[in-house]
C-alpha cells in the first residue's frame, strides 16, 4: 500500500495555491502596469509635441512665414517628427515619419502605433493654430499646424518587464519562506500524534496502562481518536482479563476434579483389598470421573456457544424451535430432582413462539435455569415458569421462593465458575457453568438474560428472546 504523508500533502497544496495566486497577481500587475506606463508615455508624447509647438516662430523673410526654432532642445533618441501647415508645407522634421499615419481632419489629438524599420513606434498627431503677426501688411493670417511626433515604445515594455521581474522574485522568496514556516508549523501541530503513538506503542498484554497524553487531549481533532483508543483498550482489557480469569478458574476446576479421580484410584491401590472394597472404590472413582467428564463437557459447550458461528448468520439455515416445547421437555427432565426436593413446578405457557435457537440448546437453557431455581428452593415451595409473547419477543420468567440473590452477586452470577463464594464450594452441586451457558445461548440468539430479587421472596430469572415469524 502506498503511504501518503499528510505533512507533504498539506504543504504541497498550500504551495500550489500560493503559486497559482502569484501567477494571477503577476498577470493583473502586468495589465495594470502596462496601462499606467502607456498613460505616462502618452503624456510625455503630448508634452514633447507641445514643446515643439511652442518652438514654432514667425519667419524672418516673406517666403517662410513660420520656422521651427529649437536651439538646445533635447529630443529623446530615435525620435521622429514632422511639422506641417494646412498647405502641406513642411515647417520642420527629424527623421522620416512614415506616410501611413492618418492626419485626421478634426482637431482632436490622436495616438497611433506604427512600425518603423522593425521597431514599434507610437505617434501623436497634434493640431494647433498660429496667427501670423497682424501688424504686417498682408493682414492677419491663420495657419493650422499639424505635428506628428513619435518615439519607440520598447522602453515601455522594458519597464513593465522590470516590474514583473520584481514582483516575481519577491513572490518566490515569500513562497519559499512560507514553505519553511509550514514545515515547522505542521511538524509542531502533528507532534501530539507522535506522542499518542508512543503511548499506544507501550501497550502489551501485561501492561494495559494507557494515559492519553495531555497534548493530544488539547487538540479538538484528536479527541475522538483518543477517546476511541481508550474505549477500545478498556474493552480489550476487560475481555482479556475475563479470558484470563476463565482459564485460571477452568484450570482450578479441572485440577481439583483430576486430583479427586487420581487420589481415589491411588487410595484404592495402597494395599490389597477385598472384592467388596474394590468394587465400592471403583464405583466411587467412576462417579468422580463422571464429574470430571461433566465439567469438560460443559466447558466445551460454553466454548462452542461463545464462538461466533457463520451458520447462524445465514437466514436459510437459522436454527428454530418452539420455546414452549423446550420448556415442557426441561420440566420433564427436572421432575425427579424436583420430587426429591419436594418442590412443585408450576408451568404457565401462553402463546407458543418460535425462537432462533437450536432445539437442544433451548432445552439446555430452560433446564439450566430451572435446575438453578430448584437448587435454591426450600423444601415444599414452588417454582413458577411463565412464558409470554409481547411485541415480537418471547419472555420467559422463572421464579423461586428461595433466599434470593445477594446484590453483590447479581453482576457476576453469569460469569463462568462464579458461585457466590470465593471458595467455589461444590456442595450446591453443578460446575458453576450452568448460568454462563444460559447467557451464551441467549446472547447468541440476540436475546438477554437477567436475574433480580422479588419483593416477596426468592429470585426471578427473566429471559428475553426474539420471536421468529
Amino acid at each position, binding site marked *: 500500500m502506498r503511504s501518503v504523508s499528510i505533512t507533504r500533502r498539506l504543504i504541497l497544496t498550500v504551495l500550489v495555491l500560493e503559486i497559482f495566486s502569484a501567477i494571477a497577481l503577476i498577470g493583473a500587475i502586468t495589465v495594470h502596469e502596462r496601462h499606467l506606463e502607456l498613460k505616462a508615455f502618452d503624456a510625455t508624447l503630448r508634452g514633447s509635441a507641445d514643446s515643439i509647438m511652442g518652438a514654432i516662430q514667425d519667419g524672418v523673410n516673406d517666403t517662410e512665414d513660420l520656422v521651427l526654432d529649437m536651439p538646445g532642445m533635447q529630443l529623446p533618441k530615435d525620435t521622429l517628427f514632422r511639422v506641417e501647415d494646412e498647405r502641406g508645407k513642411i515647417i520642420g522634421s527629424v527623421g522620416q515619419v512614415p506616410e501611413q499615419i492618418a492626419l485626421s481632419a478634426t482637431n482632436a489629438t490622436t495616438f497611433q502605433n506604427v512600425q518603423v524599420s522593425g521597431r514599434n513606434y507610437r505617434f501623436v498627431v497634434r493640431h494647433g493654430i498660429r496667427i501670423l503677426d497682424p501688424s504686417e501688411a498682408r493682414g492677419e493670417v491663420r495657419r493650422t499646424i499639424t505635428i506628428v511626433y513619435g518615439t519607440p515604445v520598447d522602453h515601455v515594455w522594458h519597464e513593465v518587464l522590470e516590474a514583473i521581474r520584481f514582483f516575481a522574485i519577491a513572490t518566490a522568496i515569500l513562497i519559499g519562506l512560507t514553505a519553511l514556516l509550514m514545515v515547522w508549523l505542521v511538524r509542531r501541530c502533528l507532534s501530539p500524534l507522535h506522542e499518542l503513538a508512543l503511548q499506544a506503542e507501550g501497550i502489551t498484554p501485561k501492561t494495559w496502562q494507557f494515559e492519553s497524553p495531555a497534548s493530544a487531549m488539547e487538540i479538538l481533532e484528536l479527541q475522538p481518536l483518543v477517546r476511541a483508543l481508550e474505549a477500545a483498550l478498556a474493552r480489550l482489557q476487560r475481555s482479556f482479563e475475563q479470558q484470563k480469569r476463565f482459564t*485460571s478458574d477452568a*484450570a*482450578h476446576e479441572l*485440577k*481439583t476434579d*483430576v*486430583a*479427586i*479421580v*487420581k*487420589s*481415589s484410584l*491411588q*487410595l484404592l491401590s*495402597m*494395599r490389597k483389598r477385598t472384592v467388596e472394597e474394590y468394587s465400592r472404590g471403583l464405583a*466411587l472413582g467412576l*462417579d*468422580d470421573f463422571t464429574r470430571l467428564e461433566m465439567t469438560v463437557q460443559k466447558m466445551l459447550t460454553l466454548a462452542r456457544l461463545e464462538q461466533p458461528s457463520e451458520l447462524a448468520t445465514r437466514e436459510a439455515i437459522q436454527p428454530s424451535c418452539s420455546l414452549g416445547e423446550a420448556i415442557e421437555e426441561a420440566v420433564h427432565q427436572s421432575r425427579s430432582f424436583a420430587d426429591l426436593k419436594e418442590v412443585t413446578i408450576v408451568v404457565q405457557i401462553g402463546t407458543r413462539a418460535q425462537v432462533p435457537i437450536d432445539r437442544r440448546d433451548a432445552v439446555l437453557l430452560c433446564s439450566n435455569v430451572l435446575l438453578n431455581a430448584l437448587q435454591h428452593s426450600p423444601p415444599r415451595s414452588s417454582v413458577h415458569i411463565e412464558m409470554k409473547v409481547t411485541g415480537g419477543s418471547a419472555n420467559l420468567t422463572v421464579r423461586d421462593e428461595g433466599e434470593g440473590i445477594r446484590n453483590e452477586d447479581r453482576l457476576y452470577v453469569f460469569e463462568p465458575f462464579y458461585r457466590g*463464594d*470465593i*471458595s*467455589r*464450594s*461444590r*456442595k450446591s452441586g453443578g460446575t458453576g457453568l450452568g448460568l454462563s451457558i444460559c447467557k451464551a445461548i441467549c446472547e447468541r440468539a440476540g436475546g438477554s438474560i437477567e436475574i433480580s430479587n422479588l419483593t416477596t421472596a426468592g429470585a426471578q430469572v427473566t429471559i428475553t428472546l426474539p420471536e421468529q415469524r
Partner: protein
Amino acid sequence: MRVLVIEDEERLAENIVGALRETGIAVDRAADGEAGSYLAEQDVYDAIVLDLMLPGKSGQKVLRDLRRRRLHTPVLVLTAQEGKESTVELLNAGADDYVSKPFDLGELLARIKALIRRAKGVSTPVLTVSDVELNSVLQTVNRRGNSLNLSPTEYRILEYLIHRPSVFVSKRELLEHLYDFDWDHHSNVIEAHVSNLRRKLNVEGAEPLIETLRHRGYRLCAERNVV
C-alpha cells in the same frame, strides 16, 4: 500422630483422610475455613493439610491466624493455583510445604510424615532409642535384631513416645495425638495399650524401656540416638 485436614472438596477430603488413616495416623477433617481455624488452634495436631480455596475463611487467612497465635504446627498447603508468586507468598506466610493439585497421594503422605518428623527434630524415617529401632516408613520395630509384632495402636504409641524421648508424656497428650474426634476418649484404653506394648518390648536381656509415673504419664527412659 494426629493430622487435621482442612478441605472443602468432599471427595478429595475423604480420600486424603482415608489414606492417612490407613497409614495409622489419626485424622480430623474440617470442611470450611472457620471450623478449620478453630480446630487448628486447639494445638493437638502434629501436622495440618490446608486447602487454599475454602468457604468462610481463606486458607491464607487460616494460616496467618495460626502463626499469629504462635502455633508452630507444620502446615502443608494444597494448591491448584498456577504461578510462583503464590508459592513464595505461601511459604512466607508460614507454610512449611506445598503440593499442587492434582497430587500423588503417596507423595502427599510421605511429605506429611516428613513434616511431622522434622517438626519433632528428626530427619530420617529410622529412629533408634537405646536398642530399639523403629522404621516409620515400613512401620516395623526391632529390638536387638528381633522383629516385634505390634498392633497399630501400640506402634503409634511407641512412635509418639520415641519422638519425645526423656519427656513425660501425659495420657491426655497421648489421647489427643493418637485419636481423632471420632474415637472414644477413654484413658483406660491407653493404659491397656501401654501395658501390652511394655510386655512386647520385654525382650530377653533387655532393660525396661517405658517408665510410668503416676499422674504424670509415660517416658521413654534411655537417651535417644538418631542413626
